[in-house]
């Protein structure tokens, strides 16, 4: 198998994916959840046999209010945070809740509520990621100082990282249309995790490349890249399969509350592995050979 001979297609593919993701970020945009928007809070009490937190959350979902957070307060009382209920929302929800146990719960109080995450959290996260990318680039330049044009590896790693973040967000938006996922503060953590994974995965492949460049000085660059990617594929797959195994197990058999977060992680692992094999090294090749297709 010669992954690199078809380099152009993969780069085009990834480029299109990225553009689509950026478009999706504007239309329809990230489905912001109640951590970022103002909404309503309700305290309910059931006289006896209360439903589970998940059942209540599902009822809200059925009534059209996704991403509701339900906290048990003891005494059969539940504190619910959901998106803005508007005028008729509460009635619809109460009807859905009645379906669970056959009884309408007592509403102890309702309130409107501001966002729980400070307005600048997303902006701060973006800046923090930007600064850390700069430092990672400096480190790569230092670690690759013995080979030509070390800064290109640093730039390629960061482009790969940006690619991963955007594509994961784009895919998440598409999935959210079907699954009703929302973006809450956990989402930021998920994206940070994706970044960590992506950088590590790319660097391991570049490291192999660095080693092969010094060992096979006479070999053509294309062949060295090819050899390095092929040698790293088993390890990349090994790591992503094991990591995905844990995430999948939690996604399929774990509780509902972590679902959206785990989806981000799973997308991150898959995209991260894909990009480290097909995107990162291809960027290096394009730099060396230009965009024309190289027949091998």
């Amino acid at each position, binding site marked *: 198998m010669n992954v690199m001979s078809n380099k152009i297609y993969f780069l085009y593919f990834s480029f299109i994916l990225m553009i689509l993701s950026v478009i999706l970020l504007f239309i329809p945009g990230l489905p912001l959840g109640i951590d970022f928007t103002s909404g309503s809070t309700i305290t309910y009490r059931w006289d006896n046999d209360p439903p589970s937190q998940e059942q209540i959350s599902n009822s809200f979902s059925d009534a059209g209010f996704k991403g509701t957070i339900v906290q048990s307060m003891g005494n059969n*009382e539940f504190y619910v945070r959901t998106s803005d209920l508007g005028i008729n929302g509460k009635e619809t929800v109460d009807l859905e809740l009645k379906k669970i146990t056959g009884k309408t719960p007592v509403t102890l109080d309702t309130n409107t509520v501001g966002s729980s995450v400070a307005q600048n*959290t997303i902006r701060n996260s973006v800046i923090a990621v930007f600064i850390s990318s700069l430092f990672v680039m400096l480190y790569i330049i230092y670690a690759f100082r013995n080979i030509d044009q070390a800064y290109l590896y640093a730039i390629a790693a960061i482009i790969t990282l940006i690619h991963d973040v955007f594509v994961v967000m784009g895919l998440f938006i598409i999935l959210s249309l079907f699954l009703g996922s929302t973006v809450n503060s956990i989402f930021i953590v998920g994206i940070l995790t994706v970044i960590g994974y992506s950088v590590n995965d790319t660097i391991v492949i570049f490291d192999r490349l660095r080693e092969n460049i010094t060992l096979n000085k006479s070999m053509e660059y294309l062949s060295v890249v090819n050899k390095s990617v092929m040698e790293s594929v088993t390890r990349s797959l090994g790591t992503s399969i094991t990591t995905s195994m844990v995430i999948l197990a939690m996604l399929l058999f774990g509780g509902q509350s*972590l679902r959206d977060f785990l989806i981000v992680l799973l997308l991150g692992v898959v995209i991260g592995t894909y990009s480290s094999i097909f995107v990162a090294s291809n960027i290096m090749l394009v730099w060396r050979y230009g965009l024309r297709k190289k027949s091998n």
Partner: protein
Amino acid sequence: MLRFRGIIIVVVCLILSILAISINPIKISDWERGNNDNFLGMVLGLDLRGGTHLVYSIISSSGEEPTIEDAEGVRKIIDRRVNEFGVSEANVQLLGTPPNKILIQIPSQEGDKIVFSFSETNPDTESIEKKLNDIGIESYEINVVEDEFILTSDVSLTQGNIDSLKTFLSDEIEVLIKINFSPNRIEGKKEGEDLEFPNINDLKSVLEKSNVNYSDLQNKEFGEFHMYLNKYGYGDESQRENIMLALSELEYNLVNFQSEGNLSTFVVSGGIQSAKRLIGSTAQLDFRVRECGKNKPEELDLQIWEMVKCYDPQYYNEVATGIESKNLTDASPGTVPELSQPVVNIVFDDDGSENFYEITDRISRTGDLLAIYLDNEELVTPGADKAISGGRAYIYGKDIDGERAREIAVQLRSGALPAKLDLIQERNVDAVLGSESLTKSLTAGIVGFILVLIFMISYYKIPGLIASITLVIYLTFLVAIFKILPVTLTLSGAAALILSIGFAVDANILISERIKEELKSGRNLLNSITIGFDRAWSSIRDGNFSTLIIAVVLYWFGSNFSTSIMQGFALTLGVGVLLSMITSFQVNRIITRIITRNQSISKTWLFIPVDQSSKKESK
């Protein structure tokens, strides 16, 4: 011995880690970690464990509905307070349109602690325990250590509980008062009979005149009297002053006045109490000049006048100085050599420094005092020997222990609240993510992890087995470190934890793959292992280092811009990656070396993964 050094270190660390995880709580004098009801004794955040749900109504200083600016200001300051206090990822939200309430959910805190002590003699513990039952405090423990009563309660105490306990201890326990008079010498009597002490009836009459409710007054020898009374008071000298004034009417010199068994300290700390104090109080620091009384009333002794002129509100007069919380640029808890108790160091801004200099200059000449109040409660009333320049000072107070000093510092740094807060609801709430749901996820995660181990052993064989052992050791170290630091584990922390486990798995796979390649290139087993480790190291190092850089930047950024969700993630990731880099490589190498010494399992085929070895056979 040298060849076993590595494995000995690993085993010792492992035993220490297992001890750290299994002992609950770990207690070495003041240093305390973990408690019984948490998972593995770890501190879990609001999203994973639940906590306390507090709703305060916001009342503006004029007593009306707060403005939107006031409410937003309250939210910001409280956010800063809980973050700076290290309560990680609390939930602070405004309620109502327009906002007039504030909701704060903070992670479960450990139970409450009340430390109290009495001067000289202690009352019997039984009466205190009986009172605790009467006021409905259950599941507590009382220990007496060095004359201090330490009451620890597993559950949070309400303010009502605490108040009734305090009233009981200060008002209902009998206090013994010991009084000594020096004798008056009677002229014309012979030596030995010329000394006259006050008699018991004199004492009775002056005490009754001043309405002192005493009992069992006894005349001991040589001018010593004993009596018992209730309501001696705590943090309130009026009863004491009342008695002293009464006694001053006798024509004898009072030389000793001693109380025994009265409450002398009462400090509530821990958990939700300190969180509530931290959140709910306005934190308005106020400096006033206390002008001591100038004109001594005729009826008072000079000795008593000196005692009361600066401390009895009916004689002194206080004047505002204009120095307040907003004049501070920094506040930090600390200690000073002159005092045995904790203090809060404060730094004034330019206006504050100038003002403070002028005021200390003035009182150093007049002999007046500086009265320092926090939320209208008197802290200390120091005098000054000379003008204090430099804009630095420290404050302390009777009930300010180390923890309270830290709270006050946080409050002063975050600024005074623009409105008053009134606690209207206090409840316990379950984890944000739902405990049922989390338990299911945790189980699934553990099953997934075991699947990973099985996969690694069956695919990579011996290196996979070693990797699995390494991973388990790594996890043990990690949990122990988290507990000892302690790291509050929230979902963002858990995400970082999963990522760092992923890195540990990755490092082990890298090593196994490298050994495999060297074996395939025809080297013998021992050489392959040595070279495999060498070559794997550079990628493990670079990958982990880059992640470490990200973690450090995120942590720095998160702590400077109070984005706690980022901070929690970064801290866990940083610790996890650093540890993973060391353990997965070193521990793996140590175990591999030991195993390869054993000839019977050092078969090359046991080191080559499944698909490759079968391919070889088929060739």
